């Protein structure tokens, strides 16, 4: 195992596997995920729906569905501590601080029968027992730019954007060092999306907090993240600096994703689309992308490619990459 580095990463995930379902119908939602987040940085995790990115995000807080999902391999380290085998009570001590989370649909993720104020106060009280509640709540609302009046309101009385700000306030109330945002803007309209993402960026600087944004929208992540991870069929298949990944995508899947996400137009002037569909989440040999890959060879279908360095911190898992290096 890796020795404790002098400066431990805030979050480090190695070869993580998450399985769902009973042994007879085992499904690998996450098959091999690697992820690292340093203090204060903004990291994006991108992939199509069903690729396991939300499962991965939940695993980071020990919030996998009980009796259904479990971590079956690899390890998660948070602030230098191996938390892979933590029990729920141990996880509870980590949730909120140092790792907090905001979710996709801010209406269903807020308790419908409890006032906003009480829901924010609950997270404050959980992590700062001695702080004066009212000023702290006002401070949090100020951070997420909401009027004080929402404290006395219920979730159904707010707009989607306001609810997402409430979710943020709840998460910030825990004073997180890492905020995991699972599709934070998917349920919102485009202008509100931009506002929330801008707010996330501001808060990150203001509070010196790291950010892990999970999204299917590469275009969104591109502008708000320092580094990117691309996930496909339960595996992280490419990662590196945002600029490097977007400008010089090494994996054919990443290239397809970029084409599909309208960051660039194809030669015929039309937006690209990925052929085929994400394969079912079962484990098998070979590169999971091979069935959809235009350049797939025999080796791609038989063996899983290893991690190959593209440049410095930019890595990808693709046989084409290796053979290209070999040819050079």
């Amino acid at each position: 195992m890796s020795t404790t580095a002098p400066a431990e990463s805030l979050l480090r995930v190695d070869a993580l596997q998450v399985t769902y379902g009973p042994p007879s119908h085992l499904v690998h939602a996450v098959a091999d995920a690697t992820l690292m987040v340093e203090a204060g940085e903004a990291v994006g995790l991108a992939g199509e729906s069903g690729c396991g990115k939300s499962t991965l995000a939940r695993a980071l807080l020990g919030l996998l569905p009980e009796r259904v999902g479990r971590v079956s391999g690899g390890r998660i380290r948070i602030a230098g501590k191996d938390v892979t085998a933590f029990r729920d009570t141990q996880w509870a001590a980590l949730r909120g601080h140092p790792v907090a989370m905001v979710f996709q649909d801010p209406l269903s993720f807020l308790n419908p029968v409890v006032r906003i104020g009480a829901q924010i106060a609950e997270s404050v009280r959980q992590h700062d027992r001695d702080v004066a509640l009212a000023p702290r709540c006002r401070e949090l609302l100020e951070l997420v730019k909401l009027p004080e009046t929402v404290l006395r309101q219920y979730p159904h009385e707010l707009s989607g954007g306001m609810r997402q700000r409430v979710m943020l306030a709840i998460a910030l109330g825990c004073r997180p060092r890492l905020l995991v945002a699972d599709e934070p803007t998917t349920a919102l309209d485009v202008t509100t999306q931009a506002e929330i993402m801008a707010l996330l960026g501001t808060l990150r600087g203001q509070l010196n907090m790291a950010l892990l944004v999970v999204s299917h929208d590469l275009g969104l992540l591109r502008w708000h993240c320092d580094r990117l991870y691309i996930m496909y069929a339960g595996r992280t298949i490419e990662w590196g600096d945002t600029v490097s990944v977007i400008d010089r995508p090494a994996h054919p899947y990443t290239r397809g994703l970029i084409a599909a996400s309208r960051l660039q137009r194809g030669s015929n002037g039309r937006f690209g689309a990925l052929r085929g569909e994400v394969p079912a989440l079962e484990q098998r040999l070979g590169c999971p992308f091979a069935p959809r890959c235009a350049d797939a060879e025999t080796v791609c279908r038989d063996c899983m490619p290893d991690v190959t360095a593209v440049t410095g911190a930019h890595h990808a898992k693709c046989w084409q990459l290796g053979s290209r290096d070999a040819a050079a």
Partner: protein
Amino acid sequence: MPIARAKALKFPALLSIGIIGSLLLLTLIVPQLLHGDPLALTDDILQPPSARHWFGTDDLGRDVLVEIIYGTRVSFLIGCAAALATAVAGTAIGSLGGFFGGVTDTVVTRLAEFFQVMPTFILAVVIVALAGPGLIRVVAVIALLSWPQTARVVRGEVLRLSRLDFVDALRCVGITEWRILTFEIIPNAVGPVFALGALIVGNAILLEASLSFLGLSDPSVISWGRLLSAGQRFLFSAWWLSLFPGLAILITVLAFNLLADGLRDMFDPRHAK
């Protein structure tokens, strides 16, 4: 979860079918095996359970076990007839509300709510007390009091189905509303009615027993409730008069409730655990 669910009856439901089946067999076979008049009065008055009279005898010297077996007929007959009547009435009313909507629907829902909220047993007692007992009247009263549950479920199903595209497709090819309702929608909506039907059989048996316990049944017909009513008179001296008929009710109603649970799981996998 893409895990296939076996859409078969689970063990408790199968067990309940077994219980109900054996009770039916007993009612059909035992009276054939007994010689003479099994319900004739004898001198063995209020005998406790023994090898000769397994469940003891009552105040007229009749064997309680034989009486219970005879009582099964009434209970099953009333239970099934009431469930059938309820299912028909509930399906008809509920589907009208769900399909035609508007004022019809409002009337149906409000009427159902009204009947569900009223202290229906008291109403049943008042009606039977005034109109006099009798199989058909008791069945009618039970149906009158239990249709709303079925109607509400059917209404919901019909409402859901009638919003599906295939209904519009049928309209486009000129099929009349009534035909769509009776031939396309109702057959698809009645699944849950079977589960409710089993539930209502159980409830009807309980209701009938309660009415005859209060003396509101034909005194010449033996029924479980009437046996318990006799048991009440001899509560302090002959416990067996109460214990066994009540057990028969409990087991039978439990069987129908288990069956209802099983059927519901079968027709609605969302409820399956």
